[in-house]
């Protein structure tokens, strides 16, 4: 087993004291932002980008991966103890989890979520170890036209899956693509869409866009319709569960993992759909006590979706690392982090930087174990974080947003750009435009352009080059299907108006 040996080397790299410290910082920060409303892992990684510039890449990615996984754990604590989820991906957990908490079974709900996340995270990371080299050996033959088609598929899939209205998802994508165009064209040195402003020649920094859309947008949105009563937090002791709970949880954990991993790996798959499917499956499979408890707080309804949620996070890393294809907002920010270090995820990354890739993957196993320890005994501590008064919380979020953006270039112009993007983020939330497509468009757009121009240069400007490879044709057809499918669904069920998938923020 070649990749097994590489993984062992990765463990050797990740188990140094310094990297263990970065992993611990990452998972702690990740759990914190996962628990806190208003901020998520995508924004946290974005804010940390400027100050991690001096950190060696392996350590930085170990920390970022910890934040990503930690955010998934923290979100479940919020959804169980408050009726409303911390992250869109734990929305389903709130259905049964909060009802369990209200019936006095908060400790068991938290335990099945944490242990389920650990089981799913570990299995899914193992699947990543197996799947990544397989995808790499397949993707090594990809030409630029295939990568371009892949980007198009990611664009349409993300836009149509994350919003009930395809046109709103596409509008969000368009905002990201347009912002990505601003600045000097890398190949010819021509300035594009800079309005004659020198500050725009370098383009708009990813950090400014991500922090503006997420942090400032959220703060303005909350200001516009603040719920003036503090939400009720269910009190909880140490998380634990009894023998019956174990018996009822282990199968949902495994089934949730089976839903989560493949969906995470698909463009536009994300965590929302697999958690929803897992919930539906558990509800249908429920027998006896569980069947009666569904809707009133069944442990299966927490165990399955939470496992699916974490497995999808590991799944997301497959296309990100092997193809350089982000399928969620956090993955897009991670891709931007790779670019900051001058690295391009893809088959070559596994060849040129095995220590980095396998160190990061090994750190996922380590981080998962740390998260289990952080979340089982310390649940009451995280529950107290939920009691931070909201005025302080959002004022603090804006303060850190301003700090992170100012730290980029020490420029007040960036702060004004941050504010304008915050207004855009506010409007997008207000009118139900998902934010993730904008972030993915911003980061993947310039890469799609490079691949497009490369493909057309090879084909001497002949547009049919783009459909010469069968892989590209299949990907483009799938992209078209992703756009058209919701229209069909709308035509078929004109009468029904129920939302299919909850609106997404960041995952």
């Amino acid at each position, binding site marked *: 087993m070649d990749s097994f040996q590489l993984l062992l080397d990765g463990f050797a790299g990740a188990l140094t004291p310094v990297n263990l410290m970065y992993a611990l910082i990452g998972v702690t920060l990740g759990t914190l932002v996962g628990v806190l409303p208003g901020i998520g892992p995508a924004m946290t990684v974005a804010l940390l980008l400027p100050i991690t510039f001096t950190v060696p890449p392996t350590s930085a990615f170990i920390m970022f991966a910890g934040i990503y996984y930690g955010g998934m754990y923290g979100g479940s604590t919020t959804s169980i103890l408050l009726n409303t989820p911390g992250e869109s991906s734990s929305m389903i957990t709130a259905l049964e989890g909060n009802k369990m908490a209200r019936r006095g079974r908060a400790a068991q709900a938290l335990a099945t979520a944490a242990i389920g996340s650990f089981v799913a995270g570990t299995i899914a990371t193992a699947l990543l170890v197996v799947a990544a080299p397989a995808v790499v050996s397949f993707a090594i033959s990809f030409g630029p036209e295939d990568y371009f088609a892949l980007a198009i598929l990611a664009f349409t899939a993300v836009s149509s899956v994350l919003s*009930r*209205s395809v046109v709103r998802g596409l509008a969000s994508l368009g905002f990201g693509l347009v912002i990505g165009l601003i600045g000097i064209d890398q190949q010819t040195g*021509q300035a594009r869409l800079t309005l004659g402003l020198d500050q725009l020649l370098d383009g708009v920094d990813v950090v400014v866009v991500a922090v503006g859309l997420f942090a400032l947008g959220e703060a303005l949105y909350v200001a516009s*319709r603040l719920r003036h009563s503090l939400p009720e937090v269910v009190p909880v002791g140490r998380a634990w569960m009894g023998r019956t709970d174990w018996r009822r949880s282990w199968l949902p954990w495994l089934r949730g993992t089976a839903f989560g991993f493949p969906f995470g790996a698909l463009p536009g798959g994300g965590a929302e759909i697999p958690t929803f499917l897992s919930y539906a499956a558990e509800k249908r499979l429920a027998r006896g006590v569980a069947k009666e408890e569904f809707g009133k707080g069944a442990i299966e309804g927490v165990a399955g979706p939470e496992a699916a949620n974490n497995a999808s996070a590991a799944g997301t890393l497959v296309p990100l690392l092997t193809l350089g294809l982000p399928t969620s907002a956090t993955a897009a920010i991670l891709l931007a982090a790779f670019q900051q270090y001058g690295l391009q995820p893809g088959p070559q990354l596994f060849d040129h930087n095995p220590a980095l890739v396998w160190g990061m993957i090994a750190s996922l196993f380590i981080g998962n174990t740390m998260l289990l320890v952080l979340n089982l005994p310390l649940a009451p501590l995280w529950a107290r974080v939920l009691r931070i008064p909201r005025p302080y919380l959002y004022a603090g979020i804006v303060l850190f947003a301003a700090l992170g953006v100012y730290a980029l270039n020490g420029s007040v112009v960036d702060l004004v750009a941050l504010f304008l993007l915050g207004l855009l983020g506010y409007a997008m939330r207000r009118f139900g435009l998902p934010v993730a497509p904008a972030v993915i468009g911003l980061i993947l757009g310039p890469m799609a352009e490079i691949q497009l121009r490369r493909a057309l240069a090879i084909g001497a400007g002949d547009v049919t080059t783009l459909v010469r490879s069968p892989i590209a044709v299949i990907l483009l057809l799938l992209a078209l299907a992703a756009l058209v499918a919701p229209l069909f669904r709308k035509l078929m069920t004109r009468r029904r108006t129920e939302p299919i998938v909850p609106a997404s923020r960041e995952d």
Partner: protein
Amino acid sequence: MSSDNTGQKQRRRWRPELGLAVIVLALGVFVVLGTLDVSAAASQLGIGPRFFPMLVGCSMIAIGLFYVADVLRGGSGDPEESEDVDVDAPADWRSVGLVSGIFLAFTAVLNVLGWIIAASLLFFGLSVVLGAEHKLRAAGVGVALGIATYLLFVKGLGVSLPGGLLRGVI
């Protein structure tokens, strides 16, 4: 072109979302017009720096048209749900305006007053607008945060933040 509301909640005739839809459309036009200025002379083979922006611009125009049509026909997205947001509450424009004003004032005075003072004022102002009950405590937390972030980021992590009035003191 009247904005009939088929089903759903009663809405006013002018829908604010139309503004956003028009912005999408206008952005598409802007990209197309802005790209015309870019000289294509640099490219002899394949495509130059104009092709992709044109593609994006034209797509944006198409998306904008569909979006405007959708809003006019009464379509709407789901306002995002969040734990601290009351989705059914009417928009509180005063708070949004105050938050915006405080943030812009912060950007204006940051370099003059320095990070510690400006950030403390930013935190205090925002928390009061967002409903902090104890003003004195909010001010205390603001000053503590301002000093703590300055020490952590400037002394600890080597980020440069403006010292302003307190330069030399801290």
